[in-house]
């Protein structure tokens, strides 16, 4: 997974004294007896590219629609720039939204669509023309000004929708699955472009997506949602390397999970006994854990290394290769441990013509570093 954003970019969320641009305070939304959003509190800071990530039905779109003003929270408050906007209608919020279906007005041409929001502000028409030309240049659709939406391709419509939402220079731009309708190639290209535009304009972007790769690539931070609640809020890298819950670990990327119990915890090192793994596991972990506690150890497939002999040291397992998936850049190996537990590990295919050292039915010894895995208690 590539990350476009430089790792050194500022981290406004690490400065708690600054007033967040969006403050969601214990917001709940029920439809009948189902909790679409269940008491969520969340701060989003100026200039962030923030992703609400989750499977369909997790409440991410409902949360976004509440920010836009299209749904009213059942309880809780929403503040934008310090102002309570919970009961403010959409047309008075300093927010614009790019809809999943794009919602372009079919009876207006591209320029009229983009000018629509500016006209509502009663902006002088010379200024409107100028601003429309500006945003059309920004998303490179200058030549489409007089086309009607039905004459545009999917990618062009997406750009028009983006231009229309940006034209009013909102403080916050909401994007509901902005790349969902595009094909894979175009999606990857557009991801980069969205990030570039966001960085150029400095507008806070809040995006809803079910695509973890998309969220990882573009976001400054991700909120992973599950069943109307937030599982974890973190920067993409931390989200991947240090998932907070079992759900977070398995939703983003692939992971091997070993259940076990704590044997001891000394000097930030936890020793865990796991029947499944058939080995003691040693994990770096700074939060205190009591001996005997049931925990799960998470280790990513790419962090598992093959060694030439099986040892008795911690984090060493062995098993038989059952399946191999060749993906080009990497191969994924499925290994069955003596306990019956299946483990995945990956290896980069560095050499083009090298004879495969690993093959079906072969016994392999594997191990990993205590700093490469994590302990999950939830």
């Amino acid at each position, binding site marked *: 997974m590539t990350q476009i954003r430089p790792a050194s970019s500022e981290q406004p969320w690490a400065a708690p004294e600054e007033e967040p641009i969006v403050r969601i305070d214990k917001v709940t939304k029920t439809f009948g007896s189902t909790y679409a959003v269940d008491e969520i509190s969340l701060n989003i800071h100026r200039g962030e590219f923030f992703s609400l990530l989750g499977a369909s039905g997790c409440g991410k779109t409902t949360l976004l629609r509440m920010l836009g003003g299209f749904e009213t929270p059942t309880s809780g408050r929403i503040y934008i720039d310090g102002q309570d906007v919970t009961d403010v209608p959409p047309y008075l919020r300093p927010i614009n939204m790019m809809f999943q279906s794009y919602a372009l007005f079919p009876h207006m041409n591209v320029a009229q669509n983009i000018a629509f929001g500016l006209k*509502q502000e009663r902006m002088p028409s010379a200024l409107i023309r100028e601003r429309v030309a500006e945003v059309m240049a920004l998303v490179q659709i200058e030549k489409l000004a007089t086309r009607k939406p039905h004459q545009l391709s999917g990618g062009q419509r997406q750009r028009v929708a983006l231009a229309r939402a940006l034209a009013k220079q909102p403080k916050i731009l909401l994007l509901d699955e902005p790349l969902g309708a595009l094909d894979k190639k175009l999606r990857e290209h557009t991801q980069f472009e969205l990030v570039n535009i966001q960085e150029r304009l400095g507008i806070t972007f809040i995006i809803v997506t079910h695509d973890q790769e998309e969220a990882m690539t573009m976001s400054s931070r991700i909120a992973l949602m599950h069943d109307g609640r937030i599982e974890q809020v973190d920067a993409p890298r931390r989200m991947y390397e240090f998932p907070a819950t079992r759900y977070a670990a398995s939703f983003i990327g692939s992971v091997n999970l070993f259940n076990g119990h704590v044997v001891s915890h000394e000097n930030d090192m936890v020793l865990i006994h796991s029947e499944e793994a058939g080995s003691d596991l040693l994990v770096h972990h700074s939060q205190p854990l009591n001996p005997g506690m049931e925990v799960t150890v998470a280790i990513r497939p790419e962090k598992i290394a093959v060694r030439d002999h099986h040892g008795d040291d911690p984090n060493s397992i062995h098993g038989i290769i059952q399946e191999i998936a060749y993906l080009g850049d990497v191969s994924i190996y499925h290994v069955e441990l003596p306990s019956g537990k299946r483990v995945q590990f990956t290896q980069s295919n560095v050499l083009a013509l090298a004879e495969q050292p690993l093959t079906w039915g072969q016994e392999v010894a594997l191990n990993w570093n205590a700093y490469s895995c994590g302990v999950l208690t939830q």
Partner: protein
Amino acid sequence: MNGWLLQLNNRIRALLPGKGLIVGAPWFWLALFFVLPFLFVLKISLAEPQLAQPPYQDWIREIEDGLITIKLNFGNYAMLWEDELYRDALWGSFEIAAISTFFCLLIGYPMAYAIALAPTHWRMPLLMLVILPFWTSFLIRVYAWIGILKNNGLLNHFLMSIGLIDQPLEILHTPTAVYIGVVYSYLPFLVLPLYATLVRLDNTLLEAAADLGARPWKQFLTITLPQSVPGILAGSMLVFIPVMGEFVIPDLLGGPDTLMIGKLMWTEFFSNKDWPLASALASVLLVVLIIPFVLMRHYEQKAAEELK
């Protein structure tokens, strides 16, 4: 399959009648029940009236063996142009049709919009209420308006009993009565197509408009109204066209000064027995009505393309 085999197969398929039948059925219907009768009417309109059965002289006649004379009479058309009565009647019909259509829109649009916005399980019952009057004979419903509108009718009784007026209002046999009758009778024809258009409107378009700063009234004017133009046009045509030729309502509710082309046609056909003149009148009316219809079709097609 080989190339030439495929081609042969396609040729044979093209010759099979199945597809042609389906496409041709409406055309056949149109030819049999519209074009053919209209040609008869056109033919009669070029004949000369006579006191006989049928009351016109055929303009193609065989005098002797093999000798055929054709005598076309354009006098009827000339008369329609020269005699102010017919122009006034055409104008009168146009006026009544246009104003009635306007009032139908004024009443029907909110009705259609309300039904389209109603919860799904309410829509069917509400539509049924709109269609319900059709279950009673049109004639009886128009007669009922006589009972309501006449000087000692229900309406005047009611208004006098609550003390709003002390003299009965003269409504029956005035243009007002015709307007009431027409708007009442043709309202469903406008509500139904308009509803069909409004219920299909994409709600996210309104959300997008709201998001971009449009207040509810502005959302209606800039999104809902322009998007419903196809429904407005279809509904208006369904009211305007039949009202132009309406005969029963002006005859029953209107007075002697209500001049409409349908009434005039009736008089020419049945009272004056001047079939050629009446036919000329019918032909002119048809041509006048076909123009807006063709324009509407054109617009509808364009709108349909946009919605795709």
